[in-house]
């Protein structure tokens, strides 16, 4: 490994002086460590503008032994996956300046976006052509589309989530050798322009051939390659859309409805929240959030029905009636309002990133989150365990937000506990941290699947699958033989 000065020199040559940063103020932007981890400042940062520059950065890292930490979202960063290690000369590769939508195509409902493109930008462009982007639940305005999809952030429309890679399709990536590689239909034959001419549109997410390396890059927290663009699924913008609430004191009943709906692919957006989480979305002010949370029923299932280009009214009527019939069998009622909040208004909110402050931080200014995959019928077990843990730690359970997002068309779900805390109140922060620390272990013992093993969850998640760890290490040695990407993350 070369010294810091040699690393900086090589990187400055790779991207040019304008895209190289060592100013402490600039670097401090990357020093967040996450909710409970002290941040570290990187050695320097680069902001490549082209794929060739990214490749040059990687080759410079191979030559000098620098540790590259790719980031795409803007500030404030959660740093779930790209924390700067204390003991390795690390360089942040900030992809935020690669922010072009290279192509957007109505016929094939697809866009090619660079990592710096954010949901608001993509959504605006998609809408112009009668399409919609597929968003996670009210992401931060600074959240990168590519980063969210690479991190397997769940989208809110389960029927469009056929497989775990969705809505990401093909990617262009630079591996740790400095080689550029394209996955799926984008691999070729032919350049992108030639493919478009022959009617291809980078829609096939599988391959090329007998490998599917987009699956290896996704969920890898930047340890396998740096993605320089991705083709992403878009969907038809509904001509009519309506939002509905279903409430219950028992989440089990709402889960039964969610199973019935997702099995038949009824509904567009569809998720479950507890009162606290819903109040955090609907209100911005702490007092109002607390007030609304007390008035709302404990559990709320929200869904939209939509009609598209052809017979939209008929489709909406069919969806409304069929869902109401399923709800009726469970003694549930679908309603368009909830304590004065209109379902249609919430539906519109879901099309855009969250206004600031971010809805998860509105109650106390900051939050920690515990999330994993499970099955919907497994959710009550985790709720009970989390309630007991909160009590044991003196954490006010009523502050806790719960979000259940069916994924893979309802075959499993993302379960998320949001633990708000006041970052200026040391006791409050410690309570949240203690709960966070123990919750990971307890949830794991109860069967939580940390598909996205950030921070301390990696050790847990990999403890039961040495076979997977060995396989990942083998693949790492192929794709990143010099280990220039994000050392120390996941099991690497």
């Amino acid at each position, binding site marked *: 490994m070369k010294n810091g000065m040699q690393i900086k020199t090589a990187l400055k040559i790779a991207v040019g002086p304008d895209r190289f940063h060592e100013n402490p103020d600039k670097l401090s932007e990357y020093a967040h460590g996450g909710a409970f981890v002290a941040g570290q400042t990187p050695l320097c940062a680069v902001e490549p503008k082209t794929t060739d520059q990214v490749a040059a950065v990687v080759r410079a890292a191979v030559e000098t032994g620098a540790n590259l930490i790719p980031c795409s979202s803007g500030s404030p960063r959660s740093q779930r996956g790209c924390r700067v290690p204390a003991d390795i000369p690390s360089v942040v590769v900030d992809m935020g300046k690669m922010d072009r939508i290279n192509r957007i195509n109505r016929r094939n409902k697809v866009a090619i976006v660079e990592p710096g493109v954010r949901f608001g930008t993509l959504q605006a462009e998609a809408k112009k052509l009668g399409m919609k982007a597929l968003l996670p639940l009210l992401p931060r305005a600074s959240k990168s589309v590519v980063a969210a999809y690479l991190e397997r952030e769940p989208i809110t429309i389960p029927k469009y989530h056929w497989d775990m890679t969705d809505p990401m399709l093909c990617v262009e990536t630079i591996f740790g050798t400095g080689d550029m590689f394209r996955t799926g239909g984008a691999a070729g*034959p032919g350049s992108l322009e030639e493919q478009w001419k022959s009617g291809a549109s980078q829609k096939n997410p599988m391959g090329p051939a007998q490998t599917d390396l987009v699956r290896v890059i996704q969920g890898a927290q930047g340890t396998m390659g740096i993605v320089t663009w991705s083709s992403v699924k878009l969907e038809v913008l509904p001509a009519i859309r309506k939002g509905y609430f279903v409430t219950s004191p028992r989440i089990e009943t709402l889960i039964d409805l969610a199973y019935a709906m997702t099995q038949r692919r009824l509904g567009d957006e569809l998720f479950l929240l507890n009162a606290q989480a819903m109040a955090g979305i609907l209100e911005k002010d702490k007092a109002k959030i607390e007030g609304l949370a007390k008035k709302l029923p404990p559990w709320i299932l929200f869904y939209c029905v939509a009609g*598209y280009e052809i017979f939209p009214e008929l489709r909406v009527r069919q969806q409304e009636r069929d869902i109401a019939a399923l709800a009726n069998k469970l003694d549930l009622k679908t309603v368009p309002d909830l304590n004065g909040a209109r379902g249609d208004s919430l539906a519109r909110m879901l099309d855009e990133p969250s206004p600031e402050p971010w809805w998860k931080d509105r109650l106390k200014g900051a939050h920690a989150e515990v999330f994993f995959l499970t099955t919907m019928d497994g959710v009550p077990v985790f709720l009970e365990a989390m309630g007991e843990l909160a009590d044991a730690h003196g954490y006010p359970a009523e502050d806790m937000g719960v979000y259940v997002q069916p994924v893979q068309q309802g075959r499993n779900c993302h379960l998320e506990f949001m633990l708000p805390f006041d970052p200026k109140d040391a006791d409050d922060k410690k309570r949240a941290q203690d709960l966070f620390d123990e919750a990971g272990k307890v949830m794991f013992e109860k069967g939580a699947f940390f*598909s996205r093993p950030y921070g301390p969850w990696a050790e847990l998640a990999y403890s039961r699958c040495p076979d*997977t760890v060995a396989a990942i290490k083998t693949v790492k040695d192929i794709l990143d033989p010099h280990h220039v990407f994000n050392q120390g993350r996941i099991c690497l």
Partner: protein
Amino acid sequence: MTFPISTKTIPDEAVSRFREALGDENFSTDPVICDGYAMQPFHKTEPGCWINRPLAVTLPSSTEEVQAIVKICIQHGLRYKAHSTGWGAHGGAGYDNVVQIDLRRMNKILEWDEKNRYVVVEPYVNCAEIQAEAMKRGFNIHIHGAGSVCSPLANATSHCGMGWSGISTSTSSRNILGVEWVLPSGEVLKLGTCGSISESAGSRWFSADGPGPSMRGIMRGWAGADGGLGVFTKMSMKLFHWAGPKETAVKGRLQDLVVEKPDNFRITLCAFPDARSYADALFKVGEAEIGFLQCKNSVALMLGAMMPRMLRKIHASMNVKKILDACRHQFMFTIAATSDLDYQYQSQCLEKIVDDHGGIVLDAPAPLHSLMYWSFVRVSLPPVVFRMGGNFFSTFGGDEAFDNCMEQARIGEEIKRQFIASKACFDDLADNPWALIYENGLFGHSEELWFYDHRDPEMGRQVDDYAKACADATLEHTLGGGGFAFFKGGEVHDILGPAMSNYHIWQRRIKKALDPNDLSDSKFYISSD
């Protein structure tokens, strides 16, 4: 006809160890038994019906026994190749020193999870068995193009997975929710939740990706490794909602079926004036999110399957050919509605889309509709594709946006016309693509079928020429990422790879890392050097 009899022999010590691990009755080197695995005329470009005779046949009954076989093979430098239900050369020995691992004793449905809509199966359970049991529970499954008598595990883990109901059930590889995989090292890798969450958790086979990077991407890509990366012993696959009855009274067999078509199903053929209107309509069908099953079964395919003698005579009549040619831009479309309003919505959408594009909707008349309904739900007709010539071959098939699939069909037809003229295959009117859309139109599939008789030396010889012409056209016209050209294996990767992101270099590195001695039969995958 020559038999490619092996010149290699299996060491006595290996024989002893196989017998010890499996029992005498589950191991054989008897040439009569071994030849049973060597007659594989389908899906090969070499003339004739024989592939390599395996050195021995093993019949494991468990994952542990599969591991034992792989480890014995490693110790003695023997190649091995898994085989479950089989359907062609890709299931058999690619070389002359291969131990066949016949998985027919691993034939159990292991677990149903009805709430979370998955079923866990072993390699030798076929789609027909799973579907029959699934329907009793209100579910259906994706059945790939080879049909219901084949193993969904073999298909999803190791081959391609396009099927008639792809519009609503996707493709096999995107239906995987967990896999148990005996690696070429003999060690077991469990993908996703089945390998890493607590035994005490109720459901354990619900997601195949992670933690962290997904090794599904190494296991397979658009195509599987066809036995070139170890052996798959368990798989969790998706269940889909079934809108039909839990039990169906069936009389007759195959083409004589009599079945009551449920009222909430509609079986149609939608025909269009030209290629453009046909494709445009399909895009709209996808956007309307309708349909249980959609597929172009060409006139030639239907005639070849149902009335092969008639198809052979048609080429003598130009007028009949022209009439049939006028019906070429069509697809079959089935609605399976979950309610009256759903039926109304889907039917009205279909009629409007077809009408807007100058086409017509032809409802299948009784009693034909019952045959079509059940045959396509059960995917029972693929074996009749062999009636026309005794064999068929397929080219293109690289999945992409449907417009690219249309190009594959157009160019495939042009190429085939030249071969029809030289009598390399039967005259199927040249227009014989099997085409469909997946996942409400996310992407499409089109493969060009080629009816021929592998017992005819001249026809057999020209298959390879035809395959090569299609592979060349794939590169020249940038058609859907290689498609079935991959299955020639070997040097094809070195031709396609440089035009496709140099995937062959990465794929070969994966093979080398996982199987350094190249013992997991890589004839249809890629060699490690």
